[in-house]
């Protein structure tokens, strides 16, 4: 009986463990599936807001307008139809809220029942007009002509640099500047954090005595426990003005500020993992080196570090993974201007910061929402590549050990 109960408990625990791992795996798969489904549906979308169309006068010869052109038209950068291949006539903008400039409340009717006819008549009477109106107005009896904009294409999404996801009437979705911003900041972070982290790890693993180590280690681990928004605030108040003064820049919110903050945040990861790797060097190897007459520094640089090289690279890459995905601290210090970065001393906008800042107001299921999911996909792919690299490097490490 006792045996039976024991057996049952064992089975039960086994089942519970199996169940939790299955649930975890399924959750991850579902999240990834959801992310990519939402992200990819962006490319079936017109850049014009849902439920709206862009219409022109029937006599207007222009039938192809690109997204950037329509944005320039509504920004009053392009004011003549000639520039987009039409007749020499000035462009008159019409948004639905402009209707009160043309007609009185009484003309619109008590329940606005006359609005569609009035807009139709208006477009018909003004040859140079381009109107941004609800799609329900442009149905039968509509005297204007609807212009279709090309869908958001994958090529444009990845190669264009303009990020205006909320621009009306046509959003501009170019993520190149955001991807470059993310990579620049992360790369800068790793360049700063790796030498410092490696030096600390060597000191802790090889040089420091037990007492120093016992103080240092918890301190460094504490660094990992500080909330990122605290880092961000520290960066905004201390590092940003410092950078501005040191480099005599007009603005201190730069990629470099982000890199420094991320470097500090990535340090615990880099130090802990590379210290562990350094400690795996067999004692016999170190002693052999010392016995051959090498001094301590020679032993460290020629024996210990090369032996732990794969572990150190894994540490660097994991640190970079942390830097790429970090949101809040970066959002606060990099200035978030969506321009292509040329140096680290310019404001940049990263992908996580963009998602965090913009998701709040994006309508669910809308164009902007999907674009943010597509950004999430890009981030996911970048971090996945980083993690696979770590896997590859650590598997190589096992082989060399044998």
């Amino acid at each position, binding site marked *: 009986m006792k045996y039976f109960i024991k057996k049952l408990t064992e089975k039960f625990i086994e089942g519970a463990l199996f169940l939790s791992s299955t649930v975890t795996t399924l959750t991850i798969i579902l999240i990834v599936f959801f992310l990519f489904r939402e992200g990819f549906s962006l490319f079936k979308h017109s850049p014009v807001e849902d439920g709206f169309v862009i219409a022109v006068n029937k006599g207007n010869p222009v039938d192809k307008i690109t997204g950037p052109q329509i*944005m320039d038209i*509504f*920004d*009053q950068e392009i004011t003549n139809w000639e520039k987009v291949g039409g007749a020499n006539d000035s462009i008159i903008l019409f*948004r*639905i*809220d402009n*209707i009160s400039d043309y007609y009185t409340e009484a003309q619109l009717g008590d*329940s*606005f029942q006359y*609005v569609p006819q009035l807009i139709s008549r208006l477009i018909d009477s003004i040859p140079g007009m381009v109107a941004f109106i*609800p799609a329900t107005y442009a149905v039968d009896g509509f005297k204007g002509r609807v212009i279709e904009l090309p869908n958001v294409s994958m090529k444009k999404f990845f190669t264009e640099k*303009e*990020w*205006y*996801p*909320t*621009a009306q009437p046509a959003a501009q979705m170019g993520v190149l500047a955001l991807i470059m911003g993310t990579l620049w900041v992360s790369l800068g972070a790793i360049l700063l954090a790796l030498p410092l982290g490696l030096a600390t790890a060597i000191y802790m693993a090889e040089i420091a005595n037990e007492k120093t180590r016992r103080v240092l280690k918890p301190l460094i681990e504490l660094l990992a426990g500080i909330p990122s928004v605290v880092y961000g605030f520290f960066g*905004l*108040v201390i590092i*940003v*003005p410092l950078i*501005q003064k040191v480099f005599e820049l*007009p*603005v*201190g*919110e730069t990629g470099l500020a982000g890199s420094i903050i991320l470097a500090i945040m990535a340090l615990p990861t880099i130090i802990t993992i590379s210290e562990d790797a350094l400690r795996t060097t067999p004692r016999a190897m170190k002693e052999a080196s010392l016995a051959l007459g090498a001094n301590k520094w020679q032993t460290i640089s020629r024996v210990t570090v090369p032996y732990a090289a794969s572990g150190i690279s894994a540490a660097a890459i994991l640190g970079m993974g942390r830097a790429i995905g970090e949101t809040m601290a970066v*959002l*606060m210090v990099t*200035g*978030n*201007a*969506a*321009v292509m970065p040329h140096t680290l001393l310019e*404001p940049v*906008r990263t992908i996580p910061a963009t998602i*965090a*800042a*913009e*998701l*709040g*107001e*994006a*309508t669910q299921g809308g164009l902007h929402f999907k674009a943010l999911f597509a950004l999430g996909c890009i981030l996911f792919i970048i971090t996945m590549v980083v993690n696979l690299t770590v896997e590859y490097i650590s598997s190589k490490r096992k082989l060399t050990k044998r």
Partner: protein
Amino acid sequence: MKTRIYTIALLLTATIITAAFAPAGLMLKIKGSDTVLPLSQKLAETYMNLNTEAKITVMGGGSGVGIAAFIDGTTDIAMSSRKIKMSEKMKLQEAGKAFKEVTIAYDALSVIVNPANKVKQLTREQLEGIFTGKITNWKEVGGDDEKIVAYSRESSSGTFEFFKESVLDNKNYGSAILMMPATGAIVQSVSQTKGAIGYIGFAYLETTVHALKVSYDKGATYVEPTVANAKNGSYPIVRPLFYYTLTQDAAKVKPFVDFILSADGQKVVGEVGYITVK
């Protein structure tokens, strides 16, 4: 630790039970603009202190979200930092709902620069040039030879939209404009950056930054951003904050709306840092 968990659990259960069996006093849901949110919260709190049986839930999400919920009927009051759009009006019309608009307060935006900046006043056209990226140096608007660093709120903010409509004449911001996640961050950055310019609500103004005089008549008169000027209508970058209610709910929302427009309610408006309607 364990006792604490029990206490929390007990408290939670108690709250849920009391919530479920609460006396049928005034139950209101308010949703919408994040600009109006702190004000509505404070007003609801004060009101609930005076009328203990009332229960008012306030939620943010943005003006658009609030009005959409209002059209769907999932909120009693939509708070909005912009006037209801023609398209939204038509949706309400289609749903057969008549609504009422109440202005509960005014919010004014001040354009701020670093105190060390020589420029103390700008016209709307100059501001438009700066924020669309056409004007990039202070010497173009009468200042030192210094690069202009323009700070804006993120696109999710109602302030971003209002500034775009009122000052930029509906044009898009330039791509080199720095986007900050919070108004506090703009104040901090402007106070420590010499060539900086930004915009914030009146309630956030501090002595570490300087508020510019603004002209909306091409430089004929420059108006100082003060509460008095905003009230008498001479300061141009002012927007009303609205509550939208359904006519059919009039009896239900009246006590709360009346409270807001009363002297007590308007006192709260002033305390939170907005401009009173009277």
